[in-house]
């Protein structure tokens, strides 16, 4: 039985609910060698900032049990180069594109959004207010309702009313629902859940932090239960807000779990590192998992865990 994979992410309609996770797919070009990136829901690009950025010192990665820590530090070419190279390529390629943007302060977010606004290749923005790889924890806007709202409001003012805007939140907070409320209140159409958890690992020889940035972001299957909980909580708190769910998804059944918990679409991140064709594979697996349960569409399973609760 054929399954209708179309997904609505607010006003964005997607071929399928499968997206890539920001920072784990660059701008899709490399993955396009392994599968046709126009055949999944879309590409969420690496968070881009106003100016070129070197990122943090190496080592930038540690493998941990069923996960990994990264301290990339938002390395990127800056928004102008991004538009000239990455966005142009994505436009030519015809891939549905959600652009992730970041900044050191609300003003930089606004500037980046200004440069990108109205670009025909962009289906929506993901506002990364939750990157743990910043020198000053205070800069994690998503840790505080007010600063989170401020950034979202700035970006909203730049991109114009109701252009699709997703705020990406951090799980490292006392109440993620509270932050979700505040960003939606400030003009976000939806939220992306979750960014990495702040973590650390020590070098077994030197007994000092391994990562150049000392702390890093924990991702991979290890964090999936935290991500499912976050999606479920926010869906319960905000029944109608579009949610992009992510965190440790490596199979179709994992993706189905996120949809059932309340996600309208899901992002595949770390799984790409062990299997570059993971997004396409997961899309196929999701289709058969849905069919195996006698559902006919993605729409039918979204938020189903909340029915009759």
């Amino acid at each position, binding site marked *: 039985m054929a399954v209708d994979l179309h997904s609505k992410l607010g006003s964005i309609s997607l071929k399928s609910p499968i997206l890539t996770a920001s920072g784990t797919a660059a701008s899709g070009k490399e993955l396009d060698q392994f599968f046709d990136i126009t055949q999944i829901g879309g590409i969420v690009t690496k968070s881009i900032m106003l100016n070129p950025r070197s990122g943090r010192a190496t080592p930038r990665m540690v493998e941990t*049990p069923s996960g990994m820590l990264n301290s990339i530090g938002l390395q990127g070419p800056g928004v102008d180069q991004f538009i000239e190279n990455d966005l142009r390529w994505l436009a030519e390629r015809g891939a549905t594109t959600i652009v992730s943007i970041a900044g050191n302060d609300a003003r930089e977010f606004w500037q980046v959004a200004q440069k990108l606004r109205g670009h025909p290749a962009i289906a929506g923005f993901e506002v990364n207010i939750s990157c743990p790889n910043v020198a000053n924890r205070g800069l994690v806007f998503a840790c505080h309702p007010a600063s989170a709202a401020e950034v979202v409001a700035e970006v909203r003012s730049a991109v114009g009313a109701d252009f699709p805007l997703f705020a990406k939140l951090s799980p490292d907070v006392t109440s993620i629902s509270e932050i979700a409320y505040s960003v939606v209140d400030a003009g976000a159409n939806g939220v992306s859940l979750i960014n990495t958890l702040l973590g650390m690992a020590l070098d077994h020889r030197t007994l000092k932090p391994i990562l150049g940035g000392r702390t890093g972001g924990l991702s991979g299957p290890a964090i999936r239960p935290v991500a499912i909980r976050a999606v479920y909580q926010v869906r319960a708190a905000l029944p109608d807000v579009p949610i992009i769910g992510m965190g440790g998804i490596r199979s179709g059944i994992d993706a189905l779990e996120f949809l059932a918990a309340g996600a309208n679409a899901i992002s595949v991140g770390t799984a790409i590192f062990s299997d570059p064709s993971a997004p396409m594979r997961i899309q196929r697996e999701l289709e058969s998992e849905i069919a195996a349960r006698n559902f006919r569409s993605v729409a039918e399973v979204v938020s189903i865990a909340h029915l009759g609760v």
Partner: protein
Amino acid sequence: MPNQVKARLQSNRKVGEYHHLVLAGEKIADGVKPGHFVSIAIGDTNSPMVTRRAFSIHRATPMTAHGSTLEIVVHPHGTGTDWLAAQEVGTTIDVISPLGKPFALPKNPVSCLLVAGGYGSAPMTFLAEELTARGCQVDMVFGAGTESKLFDVLAAKRIARFFEVTTDDGSSGVKGRVSDVIPNMFLNGHTAVVYACGPMPMLESVAALAKQRNIVSQVAVEESMACGIGVCMTCVLPIVGDDGITRMTRSCVDGPVFRGDRVRWDDLGTVPDDCLGAPKVGGH
């Protein structure tokens, strides 16, 4: 263009402290050049190890009886390499090949010195054959901590014009480091290009020695990698571009082979202040 291949482990032979693995599969050898590497997934789909492991390609043979084959040399010394070395013939291994930029080969038939440290010798006989085929003179020097960490010495003896071995403990060849014998080999061999693969400190010394004599050096670096295909920005190191600007450059797609004089050796593990997009005070 890399292929993701479900390969069959054709052979797994212990050689000193290393394991020599032969992997068979369709397209696995397509487009492979010396200096390319492969990445291998560790464990099954539920594996706690979420990143692949990178290995230099020792040899690639398109179209054998069992389809194409590809050979690597594994030093088991961690969870993933231990797992790989322990796999039995017949198991299916998820391989992505080829990855990275290979060694640049000289246009003219010049004299080349190939320097390897430890398992860094894995790609060297493959490279030597390509160079010889182009009429280049090939000299080689293999170094290691001890004899059991030398690989492919016989093959090197066969193909090299001048060949030297060094070990830190003197268990084989000259007691000492490759850098002790390289200067003479440069002289005797009238070296025009030096190729090196091995630990970073060794690569640094090779690049330095080459620079002193205006010899072109090509070094294959080894940085920790999460994706191996260019999407994650884990594997960067400070490299000086043609425009003279230093960038944190991905070694998995723009390397692993770099010109020795382009690597900011003194700044490895840091972000040089003059690097493109380097953090202002207070850091990122």
